[in-house]
């Protein structure tokens, strides 16, 4: 059974979103379920800092030995950081999807938009 931390929010595209900071910044990654389904991640393409992203649009991709999966912006905002460590070691996504394997940080255009995401219980329902 895949791990679904209760303190995160989720999207239907199997991404997790950390509670916004006071400055309205959220950290984003892919879920344990997603990394397990992908298998060994070998390459990650992510937007550069400064990129404006719109909710539910494709902004990058995660490639494993066997397939490729799009990265979606979970919410609308501006990318303010990308996880540079993934360039050297994409397998962090497999070994620590909710920690060192995070993808990007986004400054939300509207901090209240966070409340539209799925709760852990709702996401659990989705992945069974």
């Amino acid at each position, binding site marked *: 059974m895949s791990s679904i931390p209760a303190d995160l929010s989720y999207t239907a595209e199997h991404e997790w979103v950390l509670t916004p900071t006071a400055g309205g910044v959220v950290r984003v990654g892919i879920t344990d379920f997603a990394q397990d389904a992908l*298998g060994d991640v070998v*390459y990650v393409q992510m937007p550069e800092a400064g990129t404006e992203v719109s909710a539910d649009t494709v902004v990058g991709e995660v*490639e494993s030995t066997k397939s*490729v999966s799009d990265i979606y912006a979970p919410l609308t905002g501006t990318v303010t950081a990308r996880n540079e460590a993934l360039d050297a070691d994409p397998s962090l996504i497999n070994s620590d999807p909710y920690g060192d394997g995070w993808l990007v940080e986004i400054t939300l255009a509207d901090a209240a938009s966070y409340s539209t995401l799925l709760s852990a219980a709702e996401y659990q329902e989705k992945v069974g």
Partner: protein
Amino acid sequence: MSELSEELLHGPLHQWHVDHGAKMAEFGGWLMPLQYDGGGVVAEHTAVRTAVGLFDVSHLGKAEIRGAGAVAFANRCLSNDLERIQPGHAQYTLALTDRGTVTDDLIAYMRGEDDLFLIPNAANTAAVVAALEAARAAEGAELEITDLHRSYGVFAVQGPLANTVMAAVGLPQPADYMSFVDATVNINGADVALTVCRTGYTGELGYEVVPAWHDAAAVWEALAAAVEIAGGRAAGLGARDTLRTEMGYALHGHELSTEITPVEAGIGWAVGWKKAAFWGKEVLTAQKADGAPRKSVGLLATDRGVPRAGVNVLDAEGNIVGHTTSGTFSPTLGNGVALALVDPAVELGQALALDIRGRRLGVNVVKPPFVKASTKA
């Protein structure tokens, strides 16, 4: 997937794979392990390159041709020249269509002049057996051609520590590449008859072990225990694919198909050109003389990214000069690699690009293997 799986065939080790957390996937109509829990493609691949891996490839076909003149008959059908080998040796060969394209690639084990054992691909076994039977009927030959798909298991022990594992289980280790022996070994107090061939599909030292279907589980359990003690692991068909791609080995349905000839695929060495007859000889001989419209090359990625099968290969001006037939991430090189069918004018060392969903991935044309082979080490 659960609906699909009920229609797929199960090998003799199905329950073992499920019990060991394997992700199962369809291969040629069979439900087989893609990778194991606690492993994954990269870990399983690396185990084979550095220690030893154990593969269940029982989905592969098995068939035999028996009767007076069985080898001579097969030599009039299959592409390679069985006169190049002796009894006790196996040979990589092709079943071609009358258009010179590839129905299947297979291994032929010469047990004797009157007894040939075949290991075709899972999805093509019925077609190979049917073509052989049609040829037999046309000749009026007194031979028995039998599809034994579910009579045997097939396991591969591959890696630099393969001999350690074979010795631990009491299995023979035939020294010559592509030689095989029949043996009876004692496993858990019971005598088990099997065949061991010095062969594989990974580029490493290794063996394929062929027990009867009903003995397969006992043999596998003994091998799996020895592999674990040796520091290796069970490896799924995901790793088998990255391993064979690093070696540039052809996979039917990718580098070979009924739309691709062995001349195009660069495996003319598996054709006995001087033989009086083999299926597809006329067309293929003409293509060899005239030059094939495409050729097979290796592509090594110069940008970060993973090539995939079936994408266009572009030259510096953006013209399509071919398409990839396989593509993956090479765990050994930490780099993208691909095999492609391209215009014959493409040269070694040439810089090309792959069209990856609209993005250009730079590649250089190389001659496989991408990783040095250790099969005869």
